[in-house]
């Protein structure tokens, strides 16, 4: 038996037999669902925490400070398990949604710091110009500061999204069948480690590669005002 024959036989045994490829496909769906909702939630939470941290009000600073401190100071597995087994213990909600919420809360802590840095990177003169025209603080923030800040922090946010997608590979800890867990399942069922793990790696890689291409394009559009 040649090397290639061996490989293809392995492939059939791991993925085709008993329709095991379907496990991976549904795993992709789960990973994407969890990641997408978590990213959105993370940006929303991150924005509010950033505003808290930048506020002049002391108690908002404290809330924001504790939030980022706890999120960054504890492992995401611990956070996920805590939210799944403690916070949502008595609430019946789709498993994937609980995971998405957990990752959103986690991501929010990191996004908050990214957004805070982005807002601080915009010159004070921009705010002053907006306010001197009679715009209120909120209008100045949403129409003048944030559009510029988002452009500056976009690469850092992309990085956070990518980290988040890979981070979701721990949802197996609470029994959710994502890509990683599906690969793991195949591994146990076939007693073969190489094929399922390589497949898992390739699937994550392709997802992130595609995401990267999309994000690069968006960044180019965002940078249009810098064309001279």
């Amino acid at each position, binding site marked *: 038996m040649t090397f290639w024959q061996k490989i293809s036989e392995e492939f059939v045994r791991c993925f085709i037999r008993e329709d095991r490829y379907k496990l991976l496909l549904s795993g992709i769906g789960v990973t994407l669902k969890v990641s997408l909702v978590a990213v959105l939630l993370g940006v929303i939470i991150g924005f509010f925490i950033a505003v808290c941290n930048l506020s002049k009000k002391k108690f908002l600073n404290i809330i924001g400070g504790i939030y980022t401190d706890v999120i960054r100071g504890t492992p995401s597995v611990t956070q996920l398990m805590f939210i799944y087994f403690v916070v949502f213990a008595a609430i019946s909600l789709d498993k994937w949604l609980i995971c998405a919420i957990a990752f959103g809360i986690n991501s929010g802590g990191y996004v908050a710091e990214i957004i805070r840095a982005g807002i601080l990177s915009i*010159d004070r*003169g*921009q705010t*002053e*110009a*907006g*306010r*001197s*025209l*009679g*715009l*209120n603080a909120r*209008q100045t923030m949403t*129409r*003048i500061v944030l*559009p*510029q800040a988002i*452009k500056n922090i976009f690469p850092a946010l992309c990085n956070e999204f990518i980290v988040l997608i890979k981070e979701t590979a721990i949802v197996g800890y609470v029994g959710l069948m994502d890509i990683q867990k599906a690969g793991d399942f195949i591994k146990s069922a076939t007693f073969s480690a190489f094929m399922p793990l390589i497949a898992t790696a390739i699937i994550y890689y392709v997802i992130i590669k595609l995401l990267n291409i999309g994000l690069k394009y968006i960044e180019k559009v965002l940078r249009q*005002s*810098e*064309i*001279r």
Partner: protein
Amino acid sequence: MIKVKNLHKKFDKLEVLKGIDEHIRPGEVVAVIGPSGSGKSTFLRCLNLLEDVTEGEIYVDDRLITDKNVDINKVRQKMGMVFQQFNLFPHLKILDNITLAPVLLKLMTKEEAKKRAMELLDRVGLKDKADSYPGSLSGGQKQRVAIARALCMNPEIMLFDEPTSALDPEMVGEVLDVIKKLAEDGMTMVIVTHEMGFAKEVASRVLFMDQGIIMEQGTPKELFENPQNERTKLFLSKVL
């Protein structure tokens, strides 16, 4: 138009303004001169409360704007401000830089604002730049756009904070010309400047500030040709 009574401003322990009383009347062009650190920019920035006032009162059209209950945004709509660093919005086209505030504040429709903006751009000689981004403009052009942006709000008074200090020398003239034209049209203005020749020519009154107070004031003729205060004399001997 603007009355300032006993204005004090402290940054932490540092007292930058130590009691300023001033009355700016409609149609006046007031030039504020003085050495660096004399508080002249701070004084200007207090007039539209970009700096909060430590002590004292500021009245705009007889309304006490240092009162906490006054909607300062409404007051600022009538006070145009031009900054040393231009502060154009780099993410917006020139036209949108100018129309953003009047449209957002519902003072004009999009079409009205656009029409007015084009008129103003024409007036400052930059009509062809309407669709450019600020990044492609020279310093002088940016500052002229900044003036147009402030004018689009139809302000009753214009505040200039060293409008030519960040410009290359060959661009100072084009900006001063625009300001001069405004003065001729009867716009009330307060201009913090280091351009003594310009102050002499355009101002109806000159304030000399030093050490946080107005040391001396008068018509350009009085102040430049016959200064009374020792500090004024010393300052002028250095800059003229």
